[in-house]
């Protein structure tokens, strides 16, 4: 959904617009909850709670076009709080059934790429909730460090720290050697190349 359309729906803030936003973000919001909780039923409840809280507090959202990222923050926080309350960490992964049609005939290159994506996907799922949260916000929702910090109400330094640790954990999980890790740090749409130039001047 285009940012302008999201903004329009958020501003409208009525039942129809809530329905439209729900349909647009339901699947990925559920996925975030499930990846933290690893239980379908609880993920369903948490997803429902997240949407309710989001719609009840939508007036707090400063930038309406960031509704998706904001919702991801709400659902991941709810999931984390649930885990803390229930004093659980991770269950055994009951694999989420994938939609039909995801398997197809690949060229060798595409097949290798698919394997890499699968490996990284599984490694990402093993990240602790607070690292998973910032990774989703940066890489999926394309938020800048400052935007993530503002949304999570933490310092930019803490965001950077979590991202760094997340990437390090991913590298460890994927059993990468240093030279093949290539932990690029662009992330999102930030111009980190410019920052590196300033640093070296």
């Amino acid at each position, binding site marked *: 959904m285009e940012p302008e359309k999201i903004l329009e729906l958020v501003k409208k803030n009525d039942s129809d617009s809530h329905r439209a936003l*729900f349909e647009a973000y339901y*699947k990925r919001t559920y996925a975030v909850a*499930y990846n933290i909780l690893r239980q379908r039923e609880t993920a369903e409840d948490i997803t429902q709670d997240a949407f309710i809280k989001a719609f009840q507090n939508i007036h707090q959202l400063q930038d309406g076009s960031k509704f998706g990222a904001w919702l991801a923050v709400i659902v991941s926080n709810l999931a984390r709080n649930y885990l803390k309350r229930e004093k659980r960490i991770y269950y055994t992964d009951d694999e989420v059934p994938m939609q039909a049609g995801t398997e197809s005939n690949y060229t*060798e290159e595409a097949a290798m790429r698919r394997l890499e994506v699968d490996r*990284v996907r599984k490694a990402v799922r093993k990240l602790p909730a607070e690292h998973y949260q910032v990774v989703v916000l940066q890489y999926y929702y394309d938020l800048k460090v400052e935007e993530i910090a503002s949304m*999570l109400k933490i310092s930019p*330094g*803490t965001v950077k720290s979590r991202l760094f640790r997340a990437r390090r954990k991913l590298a460890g999980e994927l059993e990468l050697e240093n030279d093949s890790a290539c932990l690029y740090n662009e*992330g999102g749409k930030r111009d980190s190349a410019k920052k590196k130039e300033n640093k*070296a001047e």
Partner: protein
Amino acid sequence: MPKKRKIKLSDDLIRDALEHDLESVNPPPSEKMWQRIEGSLETGRTSAVKRRFAPGRFAAVAAAACLLLVLGSIGIFRFTELAMPAREVEMPIRTADEAVPAEVEEKDVPEVTVPEELEVDPGIEPAVREEVEPELDIAMEEKDEPEIEVAMEEEAEPEADDPAKDEMALMEAPSLYGERDPSPPEWQSELPGNFTFHEALLMYADEEQFYRAAVYSNEEAELLWVKSDLEDEKLGYFIDQLVEQLNEHVRELKEVDETVHFTAADRPGLAWREENHNQALLVVSGHLSAERLKDIAAGIE
């Protein structure tokens, strides 16, 4: 079967993995969930998550109830015992053969009053009850937790290779200015002006680069003394990065005698190079003049 090759963990790969993960999941049907959400929005209910009745919790509840009974019994026992006249009362050991009832003349029995110190502490029972009730109430409305307005400086994540240390650090409350430094260098215990050392921190300027910092405070202000390990870092860049970590902007930058004077959030700061490394001293809360800050910086060893 395509052979494995080394993975380059690029941003694109992480992005693809997340897209694949979040967009290809098969959630439960949306219609039913939407109906529940719509219903909740109309009625004002906030939570679908029900507390499960876990045996462990039941045991805790039972233990709390027993404790309450015991405390209550002790309280009642003490009350009845000490309400009797203040005289030594010998409690003879009675055997089955002995049947010597205590002869207490009615006139010796004082009127029962309740000494103040024996009153059951009104705080105990209700407090325990408060502890017990939420556990028994299975389908209670979940407390409205502030997930939205989240002041999530809740974990300190020190740069530690020891996983056990990481776990401990998760439990600690974070600092406002950065994360606790798990292995700080030796900072001066006090700065001129009775500024005493408070805590040592790490402030992350970049994903892999951090500054070491120490917080000093007295009754009037709080100072941050920051040291950078980078040798080729421009002083201006250092100041920018540092102030950005405090969610502020630099204003009024000027250089005097190889020291840069700046302000951030209308508070003074100083930055300088020492042995090819940048350092800064700035006021982060309270009030302190630039002149006094300069005097304090002069007293840094």
